[in-house]
């Protein structure tokens, strides 16, 4: 397998401009002769489908949701970064580029990151033109705030609902194209396989979630924008239906899967309250701008928080990272919380959290200001926990939140399968080993609005005059039959345990051994337990109901099956990456102060895994990373 990143020549600041000039174009009148399939209608897929539709291509968009407006992007709270420098505090495209490469712990491709920083400014213009109601100052200009890991104010936001508003912007643009007939939307349709003919992506096989019917769709190119795989851990901040199936099925058809072990643990989620918990709720990181994080100094502390005097509190982030304090990047803040809780200093009924305290901010700024900034988040917290953060400090704990790994893509966002693209959280591209806050929305929209619509013509142009492979081609028939058999198979097992029961067990293995801290021993244990549990799944699964009507238990079975295979490559990737970097912390590789220790001499590369037919033995390939602009250095937030 060849990993050619196809990075354009030239100085970092010229690469994207050069690329856009040199790539092949498709003349506007010819675009309607091309069919493009876009799977996923979140920020990345929705933006790509709408823009390709506007440009004149025939687009077919697919989502398992009932409407494009439900994609998980809707849940993003905090904001979106852009190098607008509206605050005049020294921001620039170069600075955003620099911060992102450094924040990613030097494990991202420089050229991609620079392009992302360049396009960031266009996203804000585009979204504003669409009517996204970003927060404004009294003078009517756009407001910004600073967000975890950045020392400038570059984050645009719409109350605590930035993802919702950006996604509604995308949804509206997409709806317009649907109304105009340029995009056909297939809702409640789940991709269950990818079809490759003569080495090129030819189309997809989907299962209608209402009727259970399996059908094929072909096109000149296929784009996957199907989100991240945090739900491999069962409990995460992702929505219930988020899954890896689309990316995993592509992987099984030849698309390399890059850096699967890079998972982001978000420091501020509400701690788990019982065994029935179905998901974890994030409390936006923006809260760390005004909240102070602490835990009691003594593990034996029993007093309620307001009665613990200052002298008995440990503001451990402020103590350990004086210059960034409570705004230390996510991986650092998460691990620090784990250290305190593991030392028995956790708070709350299960001693599984730390405090995020607003009393100083309320005293300094007044309750009204805090309410204006965080009112809806405080309300959400109270609804879940029955405690008011105005009176009692919040309790928070890290939770799996985002996956930096994903399908390997080159500079054009093409996977190792020609004609198959991946965008948004589904690809591995821009965040290296750790994503900075407010950068995922930016990347999804940059990929969807600005990158893909520019790169896809380079592949399509030479295909002028060709027709998509017909769906009665043998490869489609084989894939359809296999998918039908797979779902019938789950129903036929007739065992004793539900898909959720297995998912929960898998998630526990992943959290224990492939979570915030990983060790060789633990990962090896996981690698022996996961295949065994998968085997039990194959023998003892119970799916009730039928395959010919809506059956959420059956949907879940397919998704969990794919998580089992993904989980193995996540652990293998974590095991072979003998260093600590960003969201990947190997206990064996840390400094004396307990900070992550990178090994640039051996691991300054992307690891991309190739499917071999055996989930326990994929082949590891590497793409070396070169840092010509931001020089390799130890990341320090002290």
């Amino acid at each position, binding site marked *: 397998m060849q990993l050619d990143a196809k990075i354009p020549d030239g100085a970092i600041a010229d690469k994207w401009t050069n690329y856009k000039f040199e790539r092949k174009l498709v003349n506007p009148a010819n675009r309607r002769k091309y069919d493009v399939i876009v799977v996923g209608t979140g920020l990345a897929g929705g933006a790509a489908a709408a823009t390709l539709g506007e440009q004149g291509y025939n687009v077919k968009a697919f989502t398992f949701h009932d409407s494009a407006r439900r994609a998980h992007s809707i849940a993003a709270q905090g904001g979106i970064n852009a190098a607008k420098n509206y605050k005049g505090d020294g921001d620039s495209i170069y600075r955003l580029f620099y911060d992102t490469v450094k924040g990613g712990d030097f494990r991202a491709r420089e050229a991609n990151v620079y392009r992302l920083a360049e396009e960031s400014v266009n996203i804000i*213009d585009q979204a504003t033109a*669409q009517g996204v*109601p970003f927060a404004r100052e009294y003078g009517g200009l756009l407001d910004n705030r600073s967000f975890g890991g950045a020392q400038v104010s570059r984050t645009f936001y719409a109350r605590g609902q930035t993802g*919702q508003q950006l996604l509604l912007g995308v949804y509206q*643009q997409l709806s317009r194209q649907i109304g105009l007939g340029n995009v056909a939307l297939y809702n409640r349709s789940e991709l269950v396989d990818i079809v490759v003919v003569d080495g090129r992506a030819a189309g997809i096989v989907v299962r209608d979630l209402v009727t259970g019917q399996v059908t094929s769709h072909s096109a000149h190119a296929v784009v996957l924008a199907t989100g991240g795989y945090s739900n491999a851990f069962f409990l995460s901040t992702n929505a219930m239906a988020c899954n890896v199936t689309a990316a995993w099925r592509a992987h099984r058809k030849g698309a390399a899967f890059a850096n699967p072990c890079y998972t982001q643990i978000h420091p501020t989620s509400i701690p788990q309250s019982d065994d029935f918990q*179905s998901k974890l709720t994030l409390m936006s990181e923006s809260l760390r701008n005004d909240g102070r994080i602490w835990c009691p100094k003594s593990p034996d502390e029993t007093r309620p928080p307001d009665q613990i005097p200052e002298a008995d509190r440990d503001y451990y982030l402020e103590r350990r990272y004086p210059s960034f304090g409570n705004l230390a990047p996510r991986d650092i803040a998460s691990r620090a919380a784990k250290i305190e809780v593991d030392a028995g200093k956790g708070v709350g009924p299960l001693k599984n959290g730390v405090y995020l305290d607003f009393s100083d901010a309320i005293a300094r700024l007044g309750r009204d200001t805090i309410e204006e900034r965080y009112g809806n988040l405080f309300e959400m917290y109270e*609804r*879940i926990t029955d405690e008011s953060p105005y009176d009692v400090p919040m309790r928070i704990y890290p939770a799996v939140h985002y996956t930096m790994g994903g399908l390997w893509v080159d500079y054009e966002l093409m996977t190792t399968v020609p004609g198959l693209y991946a965008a948004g959280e589904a690809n591995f591209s821009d965040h290296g080993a750790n994503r900075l806050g407010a950068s995922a929305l930016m990347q999804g929209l940059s990929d969807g609005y600005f990158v893909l619509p520019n790169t896809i013509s380079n592949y399509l142009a030479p295909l002028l005059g060709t027709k998509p492979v017909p769906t009665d081609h043998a490869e489609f028939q084989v894939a359809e039959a296999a998918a039908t058999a797979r779902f019938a198979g789950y129903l036929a097992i007739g065992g004793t345990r539900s898909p959720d029961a297995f998912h929960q067990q898998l998630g526990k293995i992943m959290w224990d051994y492939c979570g915030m801290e990983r060790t060789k021993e633990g990962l090896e244990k996981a690698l022996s337990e996961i295949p065994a549990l998968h085997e039990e799944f194959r023998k003892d699964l119970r799916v009730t109901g039928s395959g010919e009507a809506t*059956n959420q238990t059956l949907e879940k079975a397919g998704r969990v099956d794919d998580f089992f295979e993904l989980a193995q490559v996540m652990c293998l990737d974590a095991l072979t990456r003998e260093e600590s970097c960003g969201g990947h912390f190997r206990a064996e590789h840390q400094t004396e102060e307990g900070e992550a220790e990178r090994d640039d001499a051996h691991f300054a590369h992307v690891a991309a895994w190739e499917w071999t037919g055996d989930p326990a033995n994929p082949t590891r390939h590497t793409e070396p990373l070169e840092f010509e602009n931001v020089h390799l250095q130890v990341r320090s937030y002290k």
Partner: protein
Amino acid sequence: MKELNLTLKIWRQDGPDSNGSFDTIAAPGINDEMSFLEMLDLVNERLINEGKDAVVFDHDCREGICGTCSLMINGQAHGPQKGTATCQLHMRKFSDGDEIVIEPWRAAAFPIIKDLMVDRAAFDRIVESGGYITAETGGAPDANIIPIPKPVADAAMDAAACIGCGACVAACPNSAANLFTSAKVAHLNLLPQGQAERHARVEAMVDTMEEFFGSCTNHGECQEACPKEISIDFIALMNRDYLAAKFKNRRTLSRK
């Protein structure tokens, strides 16, 4: 933590064209820290263990933002807690021994797919007819070129907060979709960027709405049920714009 023993009466229906009926399911041993949907997860887990079909219900984010969840709980859309979507409702709002009746949204424009899941595609049709600002990708001017007074941006945001759940329709005795439609109309019609298409937009959206939904007779039930507390003042704004659209000479759109 308290333990609740409940009796659920859940609507079961095989498909859009079949007849449905209530199924009575005992739900003992419910931890009151659970969310309402976690309670249903547990009930489903028990049903699967007994070899029975799980109850189908729509849900996804479980944090009150995606608008997917949709249940009539004891006759109230999204249940008893004000400004709260079903997924954010917790069992501590219920008491031991309660009987809870759980039904799907009921409206002709929202056909039942299975059990508690309905098809809300009519909402998408309304947005497709005009719920956008035409601004194709590329060529947008700098975002700070048009300053927007904060109160205007805030009002647009209040309207844009709608999650498209359909509780307003379910709660309305006429199954009208005026609150949903007016929220989108107001979001865009309040903003300077939305002015060029203001009249065409409201006309197209209202006309499409009327193809699917009943007429509003100002009951105000929608606002009570809305998990985002969208105000019925937006309906008045939509009506005003709709009336104006009927008389406006579009060639004079650039004049006040």
